[in-house]
């Protein structure tokens, strides 16, 4: 086995960069698409709710009931879009999607409140389960605070006497953007590595240029290195660019030590290159490579904790997520960005990423020669 030739690798890497940067479409995929995706996720993927359409039925019509309604409106989370005295109108508003939330205040609300206890009814459009859950949480807090305020005015705490004071650390306003944007950075980088690496080899096969390389003295190792090195460079540039946008445009706090993130990114990019290379050994055409890529990427995102918390997955899937590089990187990037953690607490994720990267790379390297010369 001969050592890789620096000259052959240099010429191949030069060629790869020329090809990457020369085609306007490839240039757009590399540098414009990640930024647009980040902006899209930063603005559009927002699970916070504001001014939720609310239908109100107030059977009591007293000063107290109006105060409660004002408390709802003052938060900005609820907007009264209609009111009536007939419960049927509330049903219709929810049916037609005119309102997401219905509030019904019973007759004798003020009197019962003064006497020590009462209840109001909150009806939610459960078809919009995400918004409904968030709205329910807000409503609960509003009602609690209203009751506490009333009790304090009368110089007494309500029965039980415990007040729950919630404070969300690392993300005080529970803004979904702060949580999502670092994760989007991770997903975009994975997509980029998979796309560029898997297509780099397969495209040569489709264009017939691969044979010309294979009959030359270029070895398999040199070919693999020259296909992955440029992608790694592009990955690091992309990561730096979109991380800067996240920090300076979206005001995502970066509390950790940036080099910590950089180390994680290198391991993560390596695992992406390895999966991309593996895909290129099992795909004969660009179409097949695309298919394989999405077959990997979709479950990788779903099982990463990006949208759905890993803790709420069935235990089998929780185990599967351990094999998923995206999961480990998202945990690192969120913890470094938002909590300022470092290697001291995150080392298991680093080790996992390194193991995944090396294992997949070995598999890809073992399969590569067979996929080149049949």
């Amino acid at each position, binding site marked *: 086995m*001969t050592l890789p030739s620096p*000259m*052959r690798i240099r010429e191949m890497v030069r060629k790869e960069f*020329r090809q990457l940067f020369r085609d306007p479409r490839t240039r757009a995929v590399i540098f414009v698409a990640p930024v647009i995706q980040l902006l899209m996720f930063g603005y559009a993927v927002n699970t916070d709710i504001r001014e939720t359409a609310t239908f109100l039925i107030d059977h009591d019509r007293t000063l107290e009931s109006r105060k409660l309604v004002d408390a709802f409106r003052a938060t900005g989370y609820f907007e009264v879009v209609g009111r009536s005295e007939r419960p049927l109108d509330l049903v219709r508003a929810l049916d037609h999607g005119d309102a997401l939330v219905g509030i019904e205040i019973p007759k004798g609300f003020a009197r019962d409140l003064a006497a020590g206890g009462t209840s109001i009814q909150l009806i939610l459009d459960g078809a919009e389960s995400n918004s409904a859950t968030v709205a329910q949480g807000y409503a609960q807090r509003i009602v609690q605070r209203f009751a506490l305020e009333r009790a304090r005015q009368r110089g007494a705490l309500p029965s039980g006497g415990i007040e729950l004071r919630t404070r969300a650390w690392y993300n005080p306003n529970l803004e979904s953007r702060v949580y999502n944007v670092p994760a989007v950075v991770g997903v975009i980088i994975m997509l980029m590595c998979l796309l560029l690496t898997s297509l780099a080899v397969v495209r040569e096969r489709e264009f017939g240029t691969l*044979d010309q390389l294979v*009959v030359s003295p270029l070895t398999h190792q040199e070919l693999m290195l020259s296909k992955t090195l440029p992608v790694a460079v592009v990955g690091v540039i992309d990561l730096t660019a979109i991380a800067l946008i996240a920090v300076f445009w979206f005001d995502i706090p970066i509390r950790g030590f940036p080099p910590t993130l950089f180390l994680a990114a290198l391991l993560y990019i390596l695992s992406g290159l390895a999966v991309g290379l593996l895909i290129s050994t099992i795909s004969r055409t660009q179409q097949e490579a695309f298919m394989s890529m999405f077959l990997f990427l979709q479950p990788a995102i779903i099982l990463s904790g990006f949208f759905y918390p890993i803790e709420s997955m069935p235990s089998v899937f929780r185990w599967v997520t351990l094999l998923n590089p995206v999961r480990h990187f998202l945990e690192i990037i969120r913890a470094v960005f938002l909590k300022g953690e470092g290697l001291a607490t995150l080392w298991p994720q680093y080790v996992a990423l390194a193991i995944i990267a090396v294992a997949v790379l070995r598999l890809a390297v073992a399969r590569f020669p067979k996929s080149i010369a*049949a």
Partner: protein
Amino acid sequence: MPDAVSVRSLTRRFGDFVAVDRVSFDVAEGEIFGFLGPNGAGKTTTIKMLTGLLRPTEGQAIVAGHDVAREVAIVKRNLGYMSQQFSLYADLTVEENIRLFGGLYGVTGARLTARRDWILEMAGLSHHRTRLTAELSLGWKQRLALGCAVLHEPPILFLDEPTSGVDPVSRRNFWDLIYDFAEAGTTVFVSTHYMEEAEYCHRLALMNRGRLIALDRPDRLRGAVQEPLLELRTDNPARAVEALREHPVVLEAAMFGRAVHLLVRDRDRAMDEVPRVLRSAGLACEALEVIPPSLEDVFVALVRREGGAPVG
């Protein structure tokens, strides 16, 4: 002097299909060795095994004195290869392609400059060195591909149907280049399905259905056909072939452009019988004469002697 290429019982199977079936031959240094046969005869598969692109199922191939299976790295340095599909980078310029292949073969510095200038001159691309390869005409592309294949001055050159799709003038120019290489001592191994190109080769290997059915100089191959060959001109060649094929005096009837070529048992009998058969079939016999066999006739005759039909 050792042979440039030496092949023994080379076989390649794809599942049940035998693409190349126990082929053996030797190619001398400086020889232009032609590989002739229809599509699917096994020419490309053989070349791929000789260049290390495909592993043989059985048999041995020695190229430039080294076993392709065991010393492929040494073999690769000694061969140039040009495939039937254009295989340079369309999104690189002429010069960038040359530089890349220079780098891959370790041709650098002053030698690269000299070789680059030679290629540009040879391909007529001196004024187009910074143009993208995609924008070049097919003839130019082919000469550039040839230039890149011989950039490192390999002793053996494999050309797999290098002129397919190129106009006759470019094809003629291309062959002038091949002659130049051979005169300079390069062994040229070229496959083609153009019969007139086959005439240019020093020796020809005829392949059909994965088997080597003949191997000799073009003039000797032509002499190998002893039966008389008649060329018939008629108003409906397809029906004429049908009408004559089963006649006892006719060994083989095949369309040949607008004419029909008949390989016959007996010249005089055929000259009598053929017009009669045509008349009774309602066909005109415009002309009927004895002609010397072309390589295509030789090919058809040899395939018949083997007892099979040509592929393609």
